[in-house]
């Protein structure tokens, strides 16, 4: 069950609309290392995790990523506010206008639609947690590229804040990885699925 909170996690503001920059920011909405990918990746990996604290962490970070997805949507919404067909053409984003008008859609910066191929779940806690750590670093790099490509100080504030969250999540996933390695070391056997082990007890 999820509950909606009628607010952004952190304020989203821009100095002025900038369709060209919106075309770049959209990758954090529906791109490979975007917030939708992040949220679905973590929430979906919970079911094969062996310890309660990792189930909690994936639930909490997966939920926070949904809030970040909303912030990116808000950023694109504000960057394209009032934009006309001409503005989209000038920004080289006429394909977006043709297919979606002023609506949002899950694509990367090149217009490639979101796909489940962006996320993985191997069902092995070490494999999945290292995937999550890599995902946080890829998102961090993407935010750095975006921050380098705008002089809009308000948009930068939002992006810097999201950048920081990637760093914190990476740290927490690293701690979770330590936790699962410790759990494996204290188990009698190599990890072969927590349900199976429970049944054998």
């Amino acid at each position, binding site marked *: 069950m999820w*509950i*909606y*909170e*009628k*607010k*952004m*996690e*952190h*304020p*989203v503001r821009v100095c002025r609309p900038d369709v060209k920059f919106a075309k770049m920011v959209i990758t954090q909405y529906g791109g490979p290392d975007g917030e939708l990918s992040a949220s679905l990746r973590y929430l979906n990996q919970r079911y094969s995790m062996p310890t309660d*604290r990792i189930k*909690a*962490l994936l639930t*909490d*970070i997966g939920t*926070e990523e949904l809030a970040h997805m*909303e912030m990116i*949507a*808000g950023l694109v*919404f*504000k960057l394209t506010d009032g934009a006309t067909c001409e503005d989209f053409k000038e920004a080289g984003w006429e394909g977006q206008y043709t297919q979606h008008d002023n609506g949002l859609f899950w694509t990367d910066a090149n217009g490639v639609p979101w796909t489940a191929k962006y996320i993985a779940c191997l069902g092995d806690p070490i494999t999945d947690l290292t995937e999550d750590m890599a995902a946080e670093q890829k998102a961090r790099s993407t935010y750095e590229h975006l921050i380098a490509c705008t002089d809009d100080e308000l948009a930068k504030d939002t992006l810097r804040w999201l950048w920081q969250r990637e760093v*914190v*999540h990476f740290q*927490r996933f690293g*701690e*979770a990885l330590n*936790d699962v390695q410790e759990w494996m070391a204290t188990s009698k056997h190599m990890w072969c699925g927590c349900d199976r082990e429970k049944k054998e007890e």
Partner: protein
Amino acid sequence: MNCEKQVAMLRRVQEMEFVAIELNLYLDTHPCDTEAINDYNCAVERLRVLVQEYEEEFGPLMHFGHGGFSQKNEWQWIQGPWPWEI
């Protein structure tokens, strides 16, 4: 619509909820840190007060029974501005 006041009150809710989020994630991987648990509980208490103050002025922050009461003669949930419009 007093947007400036709404933004300011919302900002205080956002700040305190951020404290709670950070402590929540930290506690997920450090569940025995009693000082952090104490800090988390303090944040929960302060957040509750800030949310209540905001909701009295601008209506429920959450739906499905988790937000504050709606005014008797008015279904406040449907009132804008929505978060991306603020």
